[in-house]
């Protein structure tokens, strides 16, 4: 058994070494402008994340979702029965949150839906939306915001976004569809997933320790 494993390791390393030395024929690598345009994008990073390395991105989203499941599972039984009373509302913060929430949401949607053309993408959009939710949680109190957001339906949206993202990934990877709309859809879904994840982490941490 030990000899077999050793032989397998030696064979694998040898194959890799031969491959790096150029024994196997390699297809010509197109310029990155051509490769980016083939995926219907102008931002090379978006073409890599949602095209050439899409397996990586899909599994990354799955890892993210699994980490969130872990956060929920461990922190739900630890939630305090009597949470610390929320910080008293300041008019400055509530009014600022009211004014800023709209622009933050619009900016996040813009970043997600134009991520294949310029700087941006699903992950920054999710982070922006999550920071908007953090601002709301600071202004209103996390528990009140959680009741308004309705956790079970939020969970359903999250899993629906993951399923839709896997379907889109199947279209791109298995059926090799190409087009800008696929990238826009994937970016919006990733943004939704990341924002909901950030909110789940924020809410569970806040409710297990009292308040934000």
């Amino acid at each position: 058994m030990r000899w077999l494993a050793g032989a397998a390791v030696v064979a694998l390393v040898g194959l890799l070494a031969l491959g790096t030395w150029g024994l196997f024929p390699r297809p010509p690598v197109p310029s990155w402008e051509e490769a980016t345009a083939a995926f219907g994008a102008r931002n090379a990073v978006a073409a890599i994340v949602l095209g050439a390395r899409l397996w990586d991105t899909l599994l990354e989203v799955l890892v993210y979702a699994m980490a969130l499941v872990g956060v929920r599972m461990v922190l739900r039984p630890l939630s305090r029965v009597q949470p610390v009373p929320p910080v008293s509302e300041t008019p400055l913060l509530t009014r600022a949150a009211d004014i800023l929430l709209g622009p933050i949401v619009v900016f996040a949607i813009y970043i997600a839906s134009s991520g294949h053309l310029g700087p941006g993408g699903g992950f920054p959009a999710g982070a922006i939306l999550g920071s908007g939710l953090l601002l709301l949680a600071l202004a209103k109190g996390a528990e009140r915001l959680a009741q308004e957001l309705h956790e079970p339906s939020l969970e359903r949206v999250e899993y629906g976004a993951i399923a839709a993202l896997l379907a889109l990934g199947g279209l791109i990877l298995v059926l090799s569809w190409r087009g800008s709309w696929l990238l826009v859809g994937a970016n919006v879904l990733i943004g939704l997933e990341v924002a909901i994840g950030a909110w789940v982490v924020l809410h569970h941490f806040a409710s297990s320790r009292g308040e934000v």
Partner: protein
Amino acid sequence: MEGIAAAALGIALGGSGLWTLVRRRNVIWKLLGLNVAAGGAILFLVAVAHRPGARPAIEGLGSGPAADPLPQALVLTAIVIHFATLALALVYVIFLTEHRHTQDVHKLEREPEEP
């Protein structure tokens, strides 16, 4: 020059973070060190993508050589995974603190678990 300086800073951050991760006995300090090391790794990847006088890897934005887009895509992955795993690790620290009432690694290893 900026690329080399940023790469050196990234390596220094990673080294100090890993040193904190190994030497400190408090779990929260260990996670902080891991956090700093991850920041150093991210900075190192961005510095690797740097070329002198390069433009962003976006078509129709400036002229000249473009920055390498592949490390930037890797950084995108690294940041999100880092956030998720750090949240999970902190949750585990909360769990440990609730059940064992200590964050010291030596005590956690030596003292038997309370029934």
